[in-house]
């Protein structure tokens, strides 16, 4: 049995404390009135930093996202603009919270999908890693509840992350009005609860059979697990897709992309696999998981490499079609990102594609912990930026900054994630000894 080391516990708790402080600071410093917001913007312009310049290009951002609500404002443009910036600034701490909450939730969900694929494929190489994956998916329920709480807070108008939740906006926007059959708060929250309920139920059932298989004399638990996993994957790919429209794409209710579900899936999948590799290497280096050898790490490395390329393929497919066709309501999505988010937008491509491509191409590097950890950290941070780029431009426009609330949000949820995952790892033996494929997995050698 694994015991949660005190050092790590203290580290996780201090991440949470520091992160919480950062988040609270973010909420405290957000403007309460339009006058405060004007003062913040004026101060930023006075310092002559990037935000001042971006502010001059505001009409671009203005036509996008929250801009619609002021389309009729016409002559009151200045006042409307100030109000618009005020909304963006008051969204900022919420968006920082939401990006980090979703990102760590997505890791657990991606890992759950990977785990279900291993179960459904009856993979022979991975049973030694099952308990690590089950540990990571323990974060699914708490992480998901936090995300739903933020969505519910948005539905109750504590923030303006989702502008279609504002009846005032919908009344003046025919496009959103036409979507209210799907995009309305009760149905939206009901969907979220059903999705999370389904995923959590599969996680609970699979974990139960997995533990029962340890002591069993026959393979019946394994077979049941196989069936549930295959069924779950069908449920998952549909619900994951709708979840990505709901939780991310609807922040920008005018824009849509048909491969968005796949794109978000690739992101969560590669991050989940990376985190499995990182936690496995951490446990292994502390003397646990003695059956894991470098061939298992090699396979995880291959998945990290392959899915990173797959993510790039989807990213580029989405980008190129919209860039080429140049339809105004579609292309604003990328224009805001390229103009206002240049560094994070292109930096993310370097981190999620070029770096893993070059460093993980060599077969020997994929067997070396050092390279996997290096590439893994860059991939995890890169996909945080990916979620950042999906949510921030529509929520805060050009007022973004990776400052105290953003880093605080990341640290808080990282601490919570580590705490829950490593607590779950102590609950069961790290070696799933009853799995019928365990022998094959132990001898696994490429």
């Amino acid at each position: 049995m694994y015991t949660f080391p005190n050092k790590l516990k203290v580290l996780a708790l201090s991440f949470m404390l520091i992160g919480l402080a950062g988040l609270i600071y973010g909420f405290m410093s957000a403007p309460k009135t339009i006058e405060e917001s004007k003062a913040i913007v004026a101060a930023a312009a006075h310092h002559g930093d990037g935000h001042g310049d971006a502010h001059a290009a505001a009409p671009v951002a203005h036509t996008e996202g929250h801009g619609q609500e002021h389309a009729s404002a016409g002559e009151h443009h200045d006042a409307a603009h100030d109000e618009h910036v005020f909304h963006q600034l008051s969204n900022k701490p919420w968006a920082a919270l939401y990006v980090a909450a979703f990102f760590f939730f997505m890791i657990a969900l991606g890992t759950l999908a990977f785990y279900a694929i291993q179960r459904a494929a009856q993979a022979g190489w991975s049973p030694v890693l099952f308990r690590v994956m089950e540990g990571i998916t323990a974060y699914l329920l708490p992480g998901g509840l936090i995300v739903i709480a933020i969505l519910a807070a948005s539905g109750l108008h504590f923030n303006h992350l989702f502008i279609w939740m504002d009846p005032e906006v919908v009344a003046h926007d025919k496009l959103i009005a036409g979507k209210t059959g799907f995009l309305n708060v009760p149905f939206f929250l009901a969907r979220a609860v059903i999705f999370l309920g389904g995923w959590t139920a599969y996680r609970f059932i699979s974990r139960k059979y997995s533990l029962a298989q340890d002591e069993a004399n026959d393979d019946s638990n394994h077979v049941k697990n196989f069936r549930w996993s295959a069924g779950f994957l069908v449920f998952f790919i549909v619900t994951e897709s709708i979840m990505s429209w709901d939780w991310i794409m609807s922040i920008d209710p005018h824009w849509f992309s048909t491969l968005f579900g796949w794109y978000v899936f690739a992101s969560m999948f590669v991050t989940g696999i990376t985190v499995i590799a990182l936690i496995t290497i951490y446990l292994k280096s502390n003397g646990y998981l003695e059956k894991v050898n470098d061939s298992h790490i090699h396979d995880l490395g291959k998945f990290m490499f392959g899915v990173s390329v797959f993510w790039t393929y989807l990213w580029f497919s989405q980008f190129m079609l919209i860039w080429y066709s140049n339809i105004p309501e579609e292309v604003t999505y990328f224009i805001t990102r390229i103009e206002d988010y240049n560094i994070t937008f292109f930096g993310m491509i370097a981190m999620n594609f070029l770096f893993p491509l070059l460093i993980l191409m060599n077969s020997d590097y994929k067997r070396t912990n050092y390279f996997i950890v290096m590439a893994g950290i860059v991939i995890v941070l890169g996909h945080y930026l990916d979620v950042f780029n999906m949510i921030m431009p529509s929520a805060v426009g050009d007022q973004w900054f990776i400052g105290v609330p953003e880093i605080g949000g990341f640290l808080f949820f990282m601490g919570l994630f580590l705490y829950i995952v490593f607590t779950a790892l102590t609950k069961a033996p790290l070696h799933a000894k009853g799995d019928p494929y365990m022998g094959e997995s132990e001898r696994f050698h490429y």
Partner: protein
Amino acid sequence: MSNQVIHALYDDDDTLLSAVKEVRAQKHHIEEIYTPFPVHGLDKAMGLEETRIAIMAFIYGCIGFSVAVLMINYIMIVDWPQNIGGKPSFSFLENMPAFVPVMFEMTVFFAAHLMVITFYLRSRLWPFKAAENPNPLTTDDKFLMEIALHNNAEELTALLKKTGAIDVSIPENKEEA
């Protein structure tokens, strides 16, 4: 240099792998192994040198990528700029996203084809070449290990039988016959 060889036939790849380890532990030199499909880990068990084709694949890919960039730049920018969908081809960088599929395909095309050609050259293979495998069963479901003989036929036969060979034979030397 002896031209005499001994052939041991196996019917299972796991038996073959352990036999290879056993034979190498007894300091016999394995000339060649014929298998109906690639056996994982056989190259390591035989102590073969690491393949360098991966390095060549990377280099070929880079060549393909460069050829694609030069080609598409000449065709679409230098020689005959066109206005496609309101995107005039006057600058390579501004039109780069449209060229990515071409660059990707050329990279893969060069890497794949040049790798196959390199492999053929290195293994001295060409179309219509007569097959070298001594036993047609190795194209079906059997594995054949070929070991050079140095007047130790009895000892080797006993060893190979012990490792699980289903048949051990010493063929007539065709070149001399």
